[in-house]
């Protein structure tokens, strides 16, 4: 069965996404990295579904897809406003509140 290698791949992808999230300052990249992480989770679900021969994994993928869509729209809306207000997409620049 391919489910275990797929899970390993999912874990790798998740890790890569996390690395991207942490290492990129541009907020767009961070969003991309998050997409990768979500994808990794989706892959893991599908691997699980494959392992147990169930359709639930695939259905979960469907919902994750919905989430990604909804979320990206909101995120991009915020990104637009941010770029407008702060004139930058540098995530580290948004640190007026601290302490």
């Amino acid at each position: 069965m391919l489910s275990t290698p797929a899970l390993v791949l999912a874990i790798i992808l998740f890790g890569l996404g996390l690395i991207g999230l942490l290492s990129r300052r541009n907020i767009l990249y961070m969003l991309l990295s998050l997409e990768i992480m979500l994808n990794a989770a989706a892959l893991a679900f599908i691997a699980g579904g494959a392992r147990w021969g169930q359709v639930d994994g695939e259905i979960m993928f469907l919902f994750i897809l919905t989430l990604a869509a909804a979320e990206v729209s909101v995120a991009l809306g915020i990104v637009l406003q941010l770029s407008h207000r702060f004139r930058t997409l540098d995530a580290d620049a948004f640190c007026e509140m601290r302490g």
Partner: protein
Amino acid sequence: MILQDFIALSPILDLGAFCLVTMLAIAFRRNHARIAVCAFLSCLFTLATLPWAATVAPRAVTTLLVVDGHALLYMGLILSATMVIVALSYRYLNSQFHEQDGVEEYYLLLLLATFGGLVLTTAAHFVSFFLGFELLGLSLCSLIGYLRTRRNPLEAAVKYLLLSITASAFLLFGLALLYFESGAMTFHEVGVSVKQWQTVPALWLGGLILVLVGIALKLGLAPFHMWIPDVYQGAPTPITTYIATVSKAAVMALLLRLATEVGILELPPVVHLFSLLAVVSMVTGNVLALLQENVKRLLAYSSIAHFGYVLVALLAGGPPAAEAVTFYVIVYCAMSLGAFGVVTVYSSEGGDKDRVEDYQGLFWTRPWLAGMLALSLLSLAGIPVTAGFIGKFYAITAGVDAGLWWLVLALIGNSVVSLYYYLRLFVTLFGEVAVQEALPQQGTVQRSEFVSWTAVCSLGFVASIILVLGIYPEPLIQLIRESVSNLLMVVAQRP
């Protein structure tokens, strides 16, 4: 889906329908007051369906949702809190959101978030869990950045967004791992599979930890607490209130159900993890709040600590723990509503009043408002006559009952530390009014003495809750006991 399922689901269906109604109302005609009333009534009607739903509870509706006493109780809490927040929001938005375009969606988003909260309370399946989680988080994200012309809300929104998606990713991946190992998606089946294992697979445990990290992020438990102060500070104050109350209560309801049904508290690693989170949260929250000069941040740090206390209660395990947690969460919601409510009302009079010095001598100029804040602070500090004391008492009782001596000691030690910053704010209320400011303000004070009746009613409601629970908590305790037994009964009923 038979009729009884619909009855059981009536709160969720009701609110869902009202979301759509509200959306249509907005599309039809924009009117701030009308939409606010509409939102308020939506919650009220939904609240009214709870007793109806209770007649068929406990009942599992498909595999996704379980409507039982526990869920209904939390729904009641969430809806009441939302109502108070709606009532507080109206004037706040009127004063803070000057642009006339698009203030109404606020209420729609609020209702959607609450809808997500309701789903979370009933969730018994990974799908409903995660969808409720996201509904709540996504709506909140927009709400936090709702004052989109200002820098702080936007900054808060982007922080919340990124971290909440991170939380979702962790959560989802964790759920996926759980699914991968156990092949089941309902909490109950997962719990069953756990019981069958001789040793819990590492991957499963890793998944569980990831799930718990996701939850901890939403609850703001240290070391996953970092977003809390920034978001609390940046978000519009009613939304801050919302995050502090509804969002956390809903997640806590879910955690409780997860803990009960999966039986994770019987796994030593999870107990250790929670203990660690509890202690770190208490210490971090309290230490960070010590010298904080921003009221909203201060309350944010205090909320971190409070959920540390809740974890202590949770760790006790068994019915007393569930009781204590629920009681504490209800109490915490009441006092947060009180504290943030005052900040909201005070900020509704021009400019955010979130510096500690803004509150200097408030008692002499605005005794009722200051009194309300004082009451909430005392409650947060756990002084008798207020609900906070009973809550803390409950938590300590649960902890002692389970023999968690070190955690209980940490709890009381931290309570003492926390007194310092509550008192700092408390004292400020009774400080001397600065002379230069006092004189020109005479006129404005007269004018702003008028607090909208909505604020009076909502704060009065919260105050009475705090006091009644502080003096005669027995009815609520009985209610919670029933709901807890309900929660446990569902577990017992399942094959």
